[in-house]
């Protein structure tokens, strides 16, 4: 198989990754899809481009004065792209990368080292992870009622 086909495989696995529930400074899924599309010479999917456009727009709002950008505008340099060093990649390396990514996606290690409910539903605070997930899936927007809030503050449990 050529480097192109391995890159395609990697991208297809990456596309199955869940999107971040909370916005972070960078998204593993989207940055890596972009990178491997670049390495394999594949067209970047539309969803990734859209996501990047949204992120860029946000950045523009946050950083109003960017010296590098001003410099670029004045000296009219072309927009520099991240350097993925495509020439360093060969079939063997991409095959390894694909294998590792597949292992991660298939939960190889969490299946190998299975943990019991002791850690997932800790007896000191059985609802801890459920509450966390409940909040995360609602984007951290869920409001807590006054009584449950008092209960949380007084007992320290969730």
């Amino acid at each position, binding site marked *: 198989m050529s480097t192109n086909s391995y890159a395609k495989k990697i991208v297809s696995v990456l596309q199955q*990754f*869940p999107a*971040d*529930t*909370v916005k*972070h*400074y*960078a*998204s*593993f*899924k989207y*940055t*890596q899809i972009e*990178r491997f599309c670049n390495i394999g010479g594949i067209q970047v999917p539309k969803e990734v481009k859209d996501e990047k456009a949204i992120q860029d727009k946000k950045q523009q709002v946050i950083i109003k004065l960017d010296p590098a950008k001003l410099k670029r505008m004045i000296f009219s340099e072309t927009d520099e792209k*991240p350097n*993925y*060093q495509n020439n*360093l*990649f060969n079939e*063997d*390396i991409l095959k*390894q*990368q694909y294998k*590792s*990514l597949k*292992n*991660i*996606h298939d*939960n*190889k*290690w*969490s299946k*190998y*080292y*299975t*943990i*019991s409910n*002791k*850690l*997932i539903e*800790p*007896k*000191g*605070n059985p609802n*801890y*992870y*459920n509450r*966390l*997930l409940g909040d*995360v899936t609602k984007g951290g927007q869920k409001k807590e009622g006054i009584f449950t809030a008092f209960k949380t503050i007084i007992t*320290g*449990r969730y």
Partner: protein
Amino acid sequence: MLYAVGKRQIRNNAVFLAKRFTSSNPSNVDNTQTKAPSPVELVKESHFPKIDNPDLPNRDISAKAKLEKPAYEKEGFKVPAWKRAFGETFVSLFHIDMDNVRAGTISGSKYYYMCKDQGLQFTDEELSETAKFWYETLGLPRTFAMWFQITNLHVWLLFVRMRAMPFKIGKNYQQKLVDKMFKDIELRLSEEMNVLSGRIRDTYMKDFHSQMLGMIFSLDEALAQKNDDVLAAAVWRNIFNGDKNIDIVKLEAIVRYIRMQLYVLDNISDRAFGFGDFQFVGPNETVDLLSEEDKQQLLKMTKMKYEPENGKILPSHKSQLSLEE
């Protein structure tokens, strides 16, 4: 206890691994049913070229002065017999709650030192066995911030286990661990990093605090979702600083490292963990899966150590912590 069993298993495993990797048959390596390679071996198999990340600060400041290890942190430290006897009398006379005291001596001291030593490094000094994995094998920058992230990862691993202890005791253990960590960071900033202004030190500490909250949240989320994809993304953001040119084999190695530690933490009883019988498995070691018999044996050994039949329990060894779970 578990560590003793773990060690024995690791030794068996090492022989097996040596055999497996010297064999010329590559189909053996792919077999997931056999013993797992250690994180170090996983990374060393990778042929990924070295790509520098220009966004990453990689400038290490040499420490102004190195913090001396306190006497009780050194190996082979023993409390004199008369102090021990005095302590036992004191505990039994005033009915001291030893589970409360132990939070400070085990979690706030022993466990914190363990976390801290994983990634501790000084410029121009040889790295410890575990630090070699983080800085040489994984190629992470040798900086103070990186040391903090590595320490934080290990603190989180202990947090996961502490949540499974009885609520009051577990919370106390967590509190003591965090308290000690920030006390140590402040001391390191002023003594080693030469940050003399208290105000600037405070700003750094607030920064470290929000980093800690972020990291613990992401890792908790990954654990709750039972998904390695989320865990890998959290590790990528927090340990690899969101490096675009990441070697995914390294990412897999850390995911494997975390899962291995959680497996050991899952199999250790509250009593053994609370008494400081846990040690992190080194990145160049690997843990074999325990059979049902091994687990029973482990429980038996824990019981024999802490509550021997027809044996007296010292006042300082009394505890509410469970021997079974």
